[in-house]
């Protein structure tokens, strides 16, 4: 199990979702991916995408005009 980060700053939804989706395809079950973004829509869209595609959101937070979403890759 490994941890990865995705820099989605200055991207607007749905681009952060697309980038996260494409990255998660490359990862193994149990890996985690932290998406860092500036579009607050990410706080809704990544959890929604994770729910419908069977992955688990471990944490969402905001700090200094940036948003963070931590996703665990699950077996779908």
């Amino acid at each position, binding site marked *: 199990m490994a941890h990865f980060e995705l820099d989605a700053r*200055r991207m*607007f*939804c*749905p*681009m952060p*979702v*697309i980038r996260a*989706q494409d990255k998660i395809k490359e990862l193994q079950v149990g890996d985690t991916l932290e998406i860092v973004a500036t*579009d*607050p*829509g990410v706080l*809704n*869209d990544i959890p*929604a*995408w994770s*729910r*419908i*595609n*069977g992955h688990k959101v471990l944490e969402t937070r905001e700090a200094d005009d940036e948003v963070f979403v931590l996703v665990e890759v699950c077996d*779908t």
Partner: protein
Amino acid sequence: MSQQRKAVALISGGLDSLLAARVMLEQGIHVEGINFFTGFCVEGHTHAIRKQDKSKAKRNNALWSAEQLGIKLHIIDIVEEYKDVLINPKHGYGKNMNPCLDCKIFMVNKAKQWAEENGFDFIITGEVVGQRPMSQRKETMPVVSRESGADDRLLRPLCAQNLPETLPEKEGWVKRDGLFGFSGRNRKPQMELARKYGFEDYAKPAGGCCFLTDESYSAKLVDLWDARGSREYEMDDIMLLKVGRHIRPAPHYKLIIGREDGENKFLQGYKNNYITFKTMDCPGPLTLLDGVASDKDLELAAQISARFSQGRDKDSVTIEARRTNGDTTTLVVKPMPASEVNPEWYV
């Protein structure tokens, strides 16, 4: 036991594609959604940029639809490939710069490719005969099927009874009498079906889901192409067309003037790509200059920018002009009176 058939549904986030997918689920079909991002999609971007919208709860309607349906959704970035659709539409444009028929053919073709790669049997859309003046007419339905290459593997569950039988119907994968015969612009049958399925909070975009159907946006795109002498664009170009007032005082440059804090902040991100103007002695907009500018042009641009600041009624406003290399010039200008801003400058 018969094999469960699989359909890929084009999900826009609107009601029709939601219903079409729901009708297929009801017939026992395994459905997954596909949503294409062209760069011109209305939802998302302007919400993210404009400060006044940030307090509203935002959602991606395609994701919301998929969640209501309990299906997977695959969002595909087609920004680069879409350029050829927009620049060279075989079937031309609609009322504005919307190449709706070519767009639909392109998207169905992409969905067909995706279906083949992922072992899906057919494609469904929420199209309704007669609903859209360009892409959803009785005459254009077979054009989309044929030119996309999907042929009879393209099923439109909401209006299938008005169209020839498709492969899923002929093979008995879906029952034709469980499909619908909707037609025309009347939305009542869809709203009634939504009620039956318990869909309440579905998206109702007033002007469609694509900026290219918008008259003002299309005018800005044409202006951009005319000014550059080339029908090309990058993602940043199409983003900037969504933001601010666009004023072209001369053919060789255009000003993009932020209308509120969210837009000013967004435009600030382009300070290394464009000359920027900001007011120093009163609150005001962040202005970008797209093009080449002489000292005289900078002066005029500063006057126009000052006209949209809170110092518009003052005798003078101090503006800092910043070049892309970071060099700055301080200009003290008289804000241009509203009466002197030529209406023809507005793009």
